């Protein structure tokens, strides 16, 4: 069975392929069943892409799965119809639905790394559905797999299927999942946040694949995301959801240009770049100085090579780069979790002992850290009171009423009411959890806070609120931030100074204004151009740039020789860049970069 | 032997008279030749499979190391001794043809049976006997060594005569010389090979795995013509009582020893199975160390002796398979058992009286383990409850079975103990009641008793002897350090296809000679 033989191919434009009417779904929680999708209608014709947008908890994934006639454990459909190609999925037998899944409706999950079975080779997993459903023979399926890999521009399409999931990079894996979804030639694809967990550069690579599949093969698709800019590149129609309710539905163009609802506007607004006014508190003198630090794990290579950064008191220094570039390693070196192989760290004029165990309580207190995943950064078995209260009693010796008073004060500072004091992290939303993390850091009354990707796990609106909070706190408390992020957009809105990392080396650093204006280091340029913009056709335009063509679909590699970026650089000088270390140059605007090209050449 | 007797080598009358004179056998000379008893029509054939309660992987065939019932039964299957105990408890010659005490029972002459062949073809002679005895004398680990201390010399007087010189007169010497350790084995250059498994016995050892299985076939040249009926003999070591009775019920074996008393009545009810018992010298005791307070005070001992309900212990620990004891070790089956001595009974008032005399309340610990005897812990618990009525506080300590004999017995002030018993009064008293004897587990010393013991040993007048032994029993009963609540029966089970003559009570399973005495119907 393949797409071409379906009975309603000709009539597809008339009858919707998928029709959902009055869908109501309930979820089970501690407090019992409550509605998580409250009467949603949608229609999807063959060849159409529908974007479902909303924050977490909006019910978008639940709707996506329901359109396959599937509900997760702890969910149940209470009302409505789901009609796929004339078949009512709600009442259809489990066996009938099973036969549809994987053949006519396919699913692409958020994290390919989690959704591929680690125990089987990729091609085996590709072939499983077509062979199991009797659509293709094993040989045909494998051939089809290789063909798909090739047509989707995956590297080494003949052999990549022989690899195990963990042997393939995140972006490639995500693309292979798209290929897998296409194995039986489905009529409907459900994409469930397929790029959310990825770097911007990788996101482009995956979006490109999805776009190819959707447009070239004329399948209908539901694309679920919280990022308007991303879905705008693919969808014909957009549906905005919030708490299970439909907020607004329109064509993509209309939605971007003329949003009808406040909430939609807020979503759009959050994706617009907010320039931060330079910190007025910028004082002279470095709070933190990192002097040519080289570091690595156990017997491995140097993850950081000769890194020097200085952070001025009261300022925000952003460290940017793709995953694998060594940003988090830098944080570990500063906190003492990873003693450097060479180099030193000075804090407030005092040289910090390299090892955590050698640092005293004051030194530990002065620098605090906030993590990417608030879920795992908070002990799920401790109440908010204990989480925030511990640094208070540990560092400052507060107890009893005084401590309680201070906890409430801190909760106010992070804009939460004192009702939260007895809650467990499990009872908080993502944004609230991150606020608690901030409060915990503040409780220590630090000078420096290291923010490690603090917004990348959050929805856009929530992330924006957290950034605002951080900025407010900075001005109120004269805090200094070392802000680690892969998202240039975020960085732009908060940083005073930007350090661009690539493969454990500093590619470029300087005042934000200087880094975000030409002359660009080629890598900075790639990063900047990869940030999705809130307009249609941005994807096509970006893909046609030479940066994108050279730079995407490749991973960060640590090298000992030459410029690590040479493989991805559109301006590579073939012999020199491979063998020679790029010289560190200072541009007129006061920022430095490591490149063979002169500032002038790069300015163009 | 009947034939031999008639043929005139030794007249039956002569032989009997000699023995009667010595008090070795009583008036039962008429039943002397049990192994020639043809009252039953015994049949030859079949394989006898027995499940035996003991057996350990550390066992060896060396007679000096025999320590359990499994090796004892193998011992009697493959080897013979100078004399053999019959069903009346009397001793008569086995490999000896006759014996002759001289010099006030200080010199003993043993005439050996002629033409007896070992399994390896060698013919029995004096050298074999002497070498077999010497294995247990001098530098040896043999427990029989202390028995043979009284032997000052052994010499041969021709090929078939061995003469023992003793340090003092002993009318019971044939019993000593027939101790189960002293198996007669083939010698070479004056020495026996203790572990070769070669003897003169009714069965030839074929396979042996220690602690698991013995397999033997009938000795075609066995010197007792009317013994050893089975063609094959297999003995399995089955230590767990339940497993043993299961094996009998399911037909895996034909004979088991030491039937679990708890379920003996249930086993007997099964079709095709017989449960039988014999009363012997086996008794269970609670020896107190009379050299340790508070047991050095005879009032305490008497209080405790009156504080136990022997009937209930026999009923609940032996389930009726035994008789009550009278606080001395001489069994009703022993020749000089003092039947006229009043039976001690449970009397809390008397116990209280003695306790008061001893200075008020008595609070003691009683160590027990089922290694001491099966049900020892239960017996101790019952004792505790009985004594509590008399206001005596006994704390029962369950000791680990492992290492009981080396850690508890003769170490702890009061414990439980097992005695297989001895066929003669002298032997029993000398072993465990004479002052300074190495197994005197009560550390008791009584001058009058010790004097009587020496006198009685060499006394040949039966009546005088009887009087002396009666007095000794009374002394032990009233002044000794031992509580003897019961004599336990040997209880065993067989399929109903097994037949046998009158059972001997000296050991389990017809004197541990079931394999040569029984037959299939």
């Amino acid at each position: 069975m393949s797409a071409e033989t379906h009975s309603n191919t000709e009539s597809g434009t008339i009858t919707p392929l998928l029709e959902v009417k009055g869908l109501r779904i309930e979820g089970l929680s501690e407090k019992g069943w409550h509605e998580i999708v409250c009467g949603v209608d949608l229609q999807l014709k063959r060849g159409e892409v529908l974007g479902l947008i909303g924050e977490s908890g909006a019910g978008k994934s639940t709707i996506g799965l329901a359109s396959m006639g599937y509900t997760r454990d702890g969910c149940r459909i209470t009302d409505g119809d789901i009609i796929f190609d004339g078949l009512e999925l709600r009442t259809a037998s489990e066996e009938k639905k099973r036969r549809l899944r994987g053949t006519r409706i396919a699913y692409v999950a958020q994290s390919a790394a989690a959704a591929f079975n680690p125990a089987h080779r990729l091609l085996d997993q590709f072939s499983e559905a077509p062979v199991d459903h009797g659509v293709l023979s094993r040989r045909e399926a494998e051939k089809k797999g290789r063909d798909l890999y090739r047509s989707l521009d995956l590297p080494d399409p003949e052999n990549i299927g022989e690899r195990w999931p963990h042997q393939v990079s995140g972006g490639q894996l995500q693309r292979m999942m798209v290929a897998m979804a296409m194995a039986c030639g489905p009529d409907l694809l459900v994409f469930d946040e397929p790029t959310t967990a990825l770097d911007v550069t990788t996101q482009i690579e995956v979006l490109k694949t999805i776009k190819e599949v959707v447009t070239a093969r004329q399948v209908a698709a539901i694309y679920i995301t919280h990022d308007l800019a991303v879905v705008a590149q693919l969808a014909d129609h957009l549906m905005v959801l919030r708490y299970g309710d439909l907020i607004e539905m329109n064509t993509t163009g209309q939605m971007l240009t003329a949003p009808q609802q406040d909430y939609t506007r807020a979503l759009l607004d959050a994706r617009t770049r907010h320039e931060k006014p330079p910190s007025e508190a910028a004082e002279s003198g470095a709070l933190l100085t990192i002097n040519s630090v080289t570091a690595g794990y156990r017997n491995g290579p140097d993850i950081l090579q000769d890194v020097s950064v200085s952070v001025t008191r009261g300022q925000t220094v952003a460290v940017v780069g793709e995953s694998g570039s060594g940003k988090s390693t830098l944080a570990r070196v500063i906190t003492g979790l990873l003693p450097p192989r060479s180099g030193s760290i000075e804090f407030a004029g005092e040289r910090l002992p390299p090892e955590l165990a050698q640092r005293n309580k004051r030194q530990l207190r002065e620098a605090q850290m906030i993590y990417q995943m608030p879920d795992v950064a908070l002990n799920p078995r401790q109440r908010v009171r204990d989480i925030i209260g511990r640094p208070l009693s540990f560092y400052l010796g507060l107890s009893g009423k005084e401590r309680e008073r201070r906890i409430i004060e801190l909760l106010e500072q992070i804009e939460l009411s004192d009702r939260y004091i007895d809650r467990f992290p499990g009872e908080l939303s993502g944004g609230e959890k991150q606020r608690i993390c901030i409060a915990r850091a503040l409780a220590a009354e630090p000078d420096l806070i290291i923010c490690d990707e603090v917004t990348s796990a959050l929805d856009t609106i929530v992330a924006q609120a957290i950034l605002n909070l951080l900025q407010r706190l900075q001005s109120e408390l004269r805090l200094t931030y070392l802000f680690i992020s892969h998202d240039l957009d975020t960085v732009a809105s908060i940083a005073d100074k930007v350090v661009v990392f690539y493969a454990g080396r500093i590619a470029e650093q300087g005042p934000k204004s200087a880094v975000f204006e030409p002359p660009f280091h080629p890598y900075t340029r790639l990063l900047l151009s990869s940030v999705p913009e809130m307009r249609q056709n941005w994807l096509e335009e970006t893909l046609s740039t030479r940066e994108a063509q050279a730079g995407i679909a490749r991973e960060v590699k640590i090298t000992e020789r030459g410029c690590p970026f040479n493989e991805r650089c559109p301006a590579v000088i073939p012999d020199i860049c491979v063998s020679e270390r790029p010289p560190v140059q200072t541009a007129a605007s006061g920022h430095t970069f490591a490149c063979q090209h002169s500032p002038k050449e790069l300015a163009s | 032997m009947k034939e031999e007797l008639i043929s005139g080598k030794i007249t039956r009358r002569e032989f009997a008279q000699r023995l009667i004179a010595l008090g070795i056998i009583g008036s039962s000379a008429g039943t002397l030749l049990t192994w020639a008893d043809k009252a039953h029509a015994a049949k030859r054939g079949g394989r006898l499979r027995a499940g035996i309660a003991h057996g350990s992987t550390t066992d060896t065939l060396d007679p000096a190391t025999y320590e359990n019932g499994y090796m004892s039964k193998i011992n009697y299957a493959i080897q013979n001794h100078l004399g053999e105990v019959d069903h009346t408890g009397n001793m008569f010659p086995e490999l000896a043809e006759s014996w002759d005490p001289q010099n006030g029972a200080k010199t003993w002459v043993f005439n050996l049976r002629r033409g007896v062949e070992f399994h390896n073809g060698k013919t029995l002679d004096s050298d074999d006997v002497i070498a077999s005895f010497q294995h247990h004398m001098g530098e040896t680990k043999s427990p029989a060594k202390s028995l043979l201390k009284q032997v000052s010399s052994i010499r041969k007087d021709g090929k078939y005569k061995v003469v023992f010189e003793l340090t003092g007169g002993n009318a019971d010497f044939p019993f000593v010389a027939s101790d189960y350790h002293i198996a007669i084995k083939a010698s070479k250059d004056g020495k026996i090979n203790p572990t070769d498994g070669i003897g003169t016995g009714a069965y030839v050892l074929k396979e042996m795995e220690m602690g698991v299985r013995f397999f033997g076939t009938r000795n075609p040249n066995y010197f007792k013509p009317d013994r050893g009926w089975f063609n094959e003999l297999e003995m399995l070591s089955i230590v767990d009582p339940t497993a043993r009775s299961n094996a009998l019920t399911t037909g895996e074996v034909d004979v088991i020893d030491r039937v679990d008393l708890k379920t003996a009545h249930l086993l007997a009810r099964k079709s095709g199975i017989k449960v039988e018992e014999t009363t012997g010298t086996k008794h269970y005791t609670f020896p107190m160390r009379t050299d340790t307070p508070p047991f050095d005070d005879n009032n305490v001992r008497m209080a405790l002796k009156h504080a136990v309900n022997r009937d209930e212990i026999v009923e609940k620990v032996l389930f009726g398979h035994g008789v009550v004891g009278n606080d001395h070790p001489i069994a009703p089956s022993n020749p000089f058992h003092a039947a006229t001595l009043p039976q001690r009974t449970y009397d809390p008032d008397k116990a209280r009286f003695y306790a008061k005399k001893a200075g008020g309340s008595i609070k003691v610990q009683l160590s027990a383990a089922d290694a001491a005897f099966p049900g020892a812990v239960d017996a101790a618990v019952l004792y505790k409850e009985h004594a509590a009525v008399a206001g005596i506080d006994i704390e029962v300590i369950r000791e680990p079975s492992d290492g009981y004999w080396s850690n508890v017995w003769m170490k702890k002030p009061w414990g439980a103990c097992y005695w297989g018993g001895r066929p003669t009064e002298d032997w029993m008293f000398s072993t465990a009641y004479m002052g300074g004897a190495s197994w005197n587990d009560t550390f008791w010393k009584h001058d009058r008793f010790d004097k009587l013991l020496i006198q009685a040993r060499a006394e040949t007048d039966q009546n005088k002897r009887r009087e002396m032994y009666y007095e000794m029993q009374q002394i032990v009963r009233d002044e000794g350090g031992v509580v003897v609540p019961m004599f336990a029966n040997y209880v065993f089970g067989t399929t109903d296809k097994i037949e046998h003559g009158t059972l001997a009570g000296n050991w389990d399973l017809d004197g541990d000679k079931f394999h040569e005495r029984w037959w299939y119907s």
Partner: protein
Amino acid sequence: MIHILKIVAQRIALGLLTLLVISLFITFGVELLPGDLAESILGQSATPETVRVFRAELGLDKPAHLRYLDWLAGMATGDMGVSLANKREISELVGIRLANTLFLGGFAAAIAVPLALLLGILAALYRNSFYDRAVNVFTLTSISFPEFFVAYILILFFAIKFGWFPGISNVSTELALGDKLYRTLLPAATLTLVVVAHMMRMTRAAIINLLASPYIEMARLKGIRPTRIILRHALPNALAPIVNVIALNLAYLVVGVVIVEVVFVYPGLGQLLVDSVSKRDVPVVQACSMIFASVYILLNLSADVISIITNPRLLHPR
């Protein structure tokens, strides 16, 4: 591959170290026990004199540490020594017993492991159904009875009432395989009942634990049949914990069966070890302990290796 070899080599080295520590522990543990072989064998009939002679004959008059060193030197050259009690070569003494023990353990494992996997997989597949609960209750009940009790119950029914099987497992070397299997079926069944619950519960739990993972949801959304999801998607990833539990239970089948051996009169190694401890036959105790410990270490090692082999992340690093 080199990765695995390295781990195996490391584990074997650690295992040898463990064995050394155990041998020390055992020697001096037995040494600390009151009494020695001479006293134990002579039992009630020990006198100071006979004990002295016996000790000299056994070499027990030498200090314990010298005897230990002798033993160690012997072991290093593959010589396990002779039993103190009966002077037999330990290798020979232990050999037959070990074969018996492994036979019974292997037989029980051959029933128990597939059965546990099957029951566990079915329970995972039909979780919270009546079947699931029934199996759960049954297996819990079976492990909550003492082993000897389970054995007696089996004997009651299958040996005494129905007479299908013998009440004791009287095996000797000359028995044919079929006969041997027939005679050891009841002890093997007893052991099966004892170990199956643990393995089955772990199988069920490990599989159910994975059922919430995204790749299982993915498989469901690919329309894969439930049986195949369990067998092909959940089971391979659940193998590591399952194999670990299986290894522990297999070790138990070899090491922990003393009581079953006693009840069925099965001449295994456990019985030999208990006998030898009670008789203080140190070399035999040592040999048995070394064998048991090695079995344990080897099984754990194999579990680790299987965990690695079934985990492509470890087997095929990037």
